[in-house]
């Protein structure tokens, strides 16, 4: 029974690494952590959603660092608790250990120990109670019930981990790597009532999970233009546009349902329940004919003295055509007692669509005070951040509030000291990068070079 939990946990965790969609995502910058994830710069993470920001001069927004190095004090904390010399017997990494908790392992990967955990998100334990009879079954998961999601749950992300596009007189061309993944689950009503509300199992009832998953990735040669189309440095309208030719390297998808159906008696006969699995998978492997499609980004930004307002849309119309897909239909064979493929078609065409992202943000900078706010809808969820930074001499005081993709409000506060071209920043922020309804709190530190 341990294996499925570990396997799923690891899968979730691995996907989570590629998809910072849980909570407010990962932050490696104490300045951002101090403001609950708000950005007061027009750097790479913002440019990805609004190509107009490529054209705005760096001096327009103060405090835009060239490089930021996180202070890995969380790693020290982690190594104190989990010495490398004892990793082989450490309960956290050893499924055979009595203290092994796969949720702790998933939480670790969702929230890598870069920053110091002042208050980790609480871990549920397995204080559970089962009631079992020939015609009855109930389970009370206790505190663990809280982490069973009532709504659709999963992880998702659309990212560009590599983007090399040198500019010349506003024109830029290059290549980027793109990734898109979504894994969604939904417990059906009866299973939800059974696990989350402790309802007893009922006769002739289907208990199951609906799932859908997609993962795809590739590269995209890109070309575009970013420049000021109106006004001057102090007051102007900036415009950016990029066109991409997406080349898909690999693609896989799965949509299905897995569950069981009870009989007239909960535990009757050698096979008291009937398994039910129906799943359709499709994939195009490396070496198959590559996927292809077109898409684009567009953005505007208005600069008026200390104010920058922008709106960008990315991956517009990004539909990928996969000309060489294999599609398998599978179901549970009750005779053979295994999942079997009953239909396969090869060399068929499939289409996928990258989620379109929308970013609206503003940055206002005046007399040592910078205020920033952004709303990002990446097609998979909406986040909102508001942050403020007040500079007093070499000191910078920061605070912020945000709403993450789980619709949880997050807070942050911090301080920075700038000496010459360097600043040392520290911030305390809440996060929900864990399988828990309750927030954790971390202390982040980083060194920035300007």
């Amino acid at each position: 029974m341990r294996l499925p939990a570990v396997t799923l946990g690891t899968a979730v965790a691995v996907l989570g690494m590629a998809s910072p969609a849980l909570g407010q995502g990962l932050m490696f910058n104490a300045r951002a952590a101090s403001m609950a994830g708000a950005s007061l710069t027009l750097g790479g993470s913002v440019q990805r959603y609004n190509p107009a920001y490529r054209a705005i001069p760096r001096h327009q927004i103060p405090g835009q660092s060239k490089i930021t190095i996180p202070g890995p004090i969380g790693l020290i904390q982690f190594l104190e608790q989990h010495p490398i010399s004892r990793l082989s017997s450490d309960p956290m990494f050893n499924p055979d250990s009595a203290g092994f908790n796969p949720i702790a392992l998933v939480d670790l990967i969702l929230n890598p120990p870069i920053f110091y955990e002042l208050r980790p998100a609480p871990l549920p334990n397995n204080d559970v109670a089962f009631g079992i009879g020939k015609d009855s079954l109930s389970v009370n998961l206790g505190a663990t019930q809280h982490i069973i999601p009532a709504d659709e749950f999963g992880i998702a992300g659309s990212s560009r981990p590599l983007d090399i596009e040198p500019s010349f007189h506003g024109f830029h061309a290059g290549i980027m790597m793109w990734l898109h993944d979504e894994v969604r689950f939904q417990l059906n009503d009866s299973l939800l009532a059974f696990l989350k509300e402790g309802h007893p199992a009922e006769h002739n009832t289907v208990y199951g999970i609906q799932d859908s998953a997609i993962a795809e990735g590739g590269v995209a040669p890109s070309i575009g233009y970013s420049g000021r189309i109106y006004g001057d440095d102090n007051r102007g309208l900036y415009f950016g546009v990029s066109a991409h030719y997406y080349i898909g390297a690999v693609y896989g998808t799965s949509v299905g349902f897995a569950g069981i159906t009870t009989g007239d008696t909960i535990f009757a006969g050698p096979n008291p329940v009937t398994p039910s699995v129906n799943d359709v998978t499709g994939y195009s492997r490396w070496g198959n004919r590559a996927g292809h499609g077109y898409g684009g980004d567009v953005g505007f930004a208005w600069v008026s003295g200390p104010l920058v307002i922008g709106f960008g849309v990315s991956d517009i119309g990004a539909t990928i055509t996969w000309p060489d897909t294999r599609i398998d239909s599978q179901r549970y064979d009750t005779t053979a007692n295994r999942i079997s493929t009953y239909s396969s078609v090869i060399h068929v065409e499939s289409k996928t669509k990258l989620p379109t992202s929308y970013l609206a943000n503003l940055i206002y900078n005046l007399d040592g005070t910078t205020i920033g706010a952004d709303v990002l809808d990446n097609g998979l969820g909406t986040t909102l951040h508001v942050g403020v930074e007040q500079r007093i001499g070499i000191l910078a005081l920061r605070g912020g509030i945000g709403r993450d993709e789980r619709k949880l409000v997050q807070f942050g506060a911090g301080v920075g000291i700038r000496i010459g071209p360097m600043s040392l920043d520290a911030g305390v922020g809440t996060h929900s990068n864990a399988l828990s309804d309750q927030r954790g709190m971390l202390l982040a530190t980083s060194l920035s070079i300007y």
Partner: protein
Amino acid sequence: MFSKWLGVTLVCAGLAACGTGHATFDVDVYSWLEGSTNDTIPYGAPPGLGTVTISNAPQKLDLLPGAGSSFVDTVRINGTMDARNATGSGSIAFQVYLAADSAGTYAPGAALFNPPPSANVSGANTSVITLTIPNLSQTLDSLFTNSQVWIRLAATVSNPGVSLLQGKAVLTSLNLHLVVSEKVF
């Protein structure tokens, strides 16, 4: 019998409920025996034979897959048995045997009660025998780390009288409270 059901259930529960803690299982064992011949032990002891032991066939109970690497903290047993005497007078003692396999239930060490709960019976009436074990011995506890356990019921009747002692012992409830610590999944 119900391992598959539990297997599926525990996959779901296990996703959420892994880690340190306790898992409690309240198993209504009687619900599997109720209505079958295995919940009743007819007895008949002619006078002059001393004690007579009558037993049912062992019955298999499927337990939880995956509990094999767990630590069983507590196994508490509660139940009741009716000694429904028809004729004669004497005493009846009731015993429950648990073992990892069918044959093992016939070993003396498989007996749960020492001494076995008993009742004196006389004429046509019913006596209720209470079966209570606050916590099984460690040896028997370990049975519950297996995926199945066998149970056998037996009644020992003693007839010191001069007429036939006859009736039936009927199990009316048998509950098992199992507490497993640490790793369940």
